[in-house]
């Protein structure tokens, strides 16, 4: 069926994935234990050290527990880890051992709280600055200084002032999401076509109507672009914030698996971070589609 296979991106995606998984599998595969040429004493020493274990049929094989921390685990090991984690996704085994579903929920809610708070503050401030050129010029130098500071650089100060790692993590996301939206909103409002404001002025629209019927929808495409940049930077900030603060979440999962020397777990955590990013991003795109318009 030539028409079915013609320029189907999913086919190429599937092929690339298969090539990657196969390559990963073969490069990380270790040879099976070969006891030929070894004396019985050597074998007993290795067994004593825990490098090898005796199998049921009398032979030897590599100790699977020790294999876990040797080299990079293959896709099958990660798959097994994922199956185990997803199997107990909704279980809470202890104060710091929550299922993966909880961890995802913690990260998403932490991210959402910081991102939404930052967006609201940034859009309000941005409109104020966009409408008032003098104020914008006065405040702009400070924005330029604060903007390039990594949100993680704020963390010690935030932790010291709010004294609560839970809120510090939210505030780190807040700092990461604030500046891009603020800068683009101010720009979008400032470069709104003067005609629209002229029409609003002639029609004697009230302050609120001017804001919600003309300024906000008019600047919406630019604001959404700023939100998109903020979104990415907040998503990048949330993982290390969780790692450093030890707050339960997918970033924390990655760090705790590293502390356990469970490399398959680390790879699984990385994949979960990517997955959460995709979920949040598609939600954001749906939202953005509602407010943008074509000139």
């Amino acid at each position: 069926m030539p028409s079915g296979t013609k320029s189907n991106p999913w086919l190429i995606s599937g092929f690339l994935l298969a090539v990657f998984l196969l390559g990963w599998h073969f490069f990380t595969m270790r040879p099976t234990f070969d006891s030929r040429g070894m004396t019985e004493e050597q074998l007993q020493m290795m067994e004593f050290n825990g490098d090898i274990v005796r199998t049921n049929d009398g032979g030897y094989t590599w100790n699977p527990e020790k294999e876990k921390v040797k080299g990079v685990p293959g896709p099958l090991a990660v798959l097994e880890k994922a199956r185990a984690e997803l199997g107990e996704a909704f279980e809470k085994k202890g104060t710091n051992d929550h299922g993966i579903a909880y961890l995802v929920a913690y990260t998403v809610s932490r991210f959402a709280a910081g991102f939404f708070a930052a967006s609201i503050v940034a859009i309000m401030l941005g409109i104020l600055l966009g409408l008032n050129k003098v104020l914008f010029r006065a405040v702009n130098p400070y924005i330029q200084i604060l903007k390039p500071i990594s949100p993680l650089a704020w963390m010690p100060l935030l932790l010291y002032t709010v004294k609560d790692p839970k809120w510090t993590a939210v505030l780190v996301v807040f700092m990461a999401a604030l500046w891009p939206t603020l800068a683009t909103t101010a720009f979008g409002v400032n470069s709104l076509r003067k005609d629209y404001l002229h029409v609003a002025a002639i029609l004697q629209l009230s302050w609120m109507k001017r804001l919600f019927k003309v300024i906000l929808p008019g600047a919406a495409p630019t604001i959404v672009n700023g939100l998109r940049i903020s979104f990415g930077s907040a998503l990048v900030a949330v993982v290390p914030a969780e790692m450093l603060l030890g707050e339960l979440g997918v970033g924390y999962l990655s760090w705790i698996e590293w502390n356990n020397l469970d490399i398959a777990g680390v790879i699984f955590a990385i994949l979960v971070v990517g997955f959460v990013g995709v979920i949040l991003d598609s939600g954001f795109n749906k939202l953005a589609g509602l407010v943008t318009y074509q000139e």
Partner: protein
Amino acid sequence: MAFLQVDHATKYFPNPSGEGQVCIFKDVTIKIEKGEFVTTIGHSGCGKSTLLNIIAGLETMSEGGVILNGREASGPGLDRMVVFQNFALMPWMTVFENIALAVRSAYPDWSREQVTAHVHKYIALVGLKGAENKRPTALSGGMKQRVGLARAFSIEPKVLLLDEPFAQIDALTRGVIQEELIQMWNTSRNTVFMVTHDVDEAILLSDRIMLMTNGPEARIAEIVDVTVPRPRSRATIIEHPHYYRIRNHIIHFLVRHAKHEPDSEAASAEASVSVAPVEVNFEKESPRAQLTAL
């Protein structure tokens, strides 16, 4: 006192080179009677659009004032609605919403049904029935400006300000919309102040045409009465004996002023600012008019 009067208006802009100011136009006085259609023609940069924006209250003047119906008009208001050259429709609103925004502002006491009926009436008037829920992006230039006209007429302003309204519309559509404008204006009889580059458009629509000299320090040099009786249409207006006389007169004026260094006689005449505009009327056959109509 005239219904709409611009009194000794002078406008300075900051000099682009940074030092001092440039006088765009100086001591411009315009008197427009109620229900009159007056057009201003002049080369780009003479300040005619600035003049229109000043009447609309969207720009301030350096000296002078605007008086509407015996009161000073400062700042924009619903009594002076503009039809913009680039339409100025909100792209995030449908045709209906664009007009309804204006109607609700002009008649805040109206019920939802009254507003809807009023908007639909004006949409029908410009022949856009069926396009109510389209956004401006989906419309051609001509249709966009029909929405612009419907929005302007729907709030029944005392003064309608047309800022080169058909400049961005193709020539064939332009003629059709001009006649639609005539019909709408025939029933509403708003006072109109229009700015244009199009001589034929000016003659077709206006009662009087004001000719502006070039800036800086532009002024209204002549006021031409369009002595062609109404109702006018594009097909019949060119048959009138005055049509080409008026047209030639205006074009001669514009060509004369297209040169950046006018001949000495014209320059000296136009340099003296206090000179009142020459009135040109081909029914009265003033000697000056005969001279320049050649």
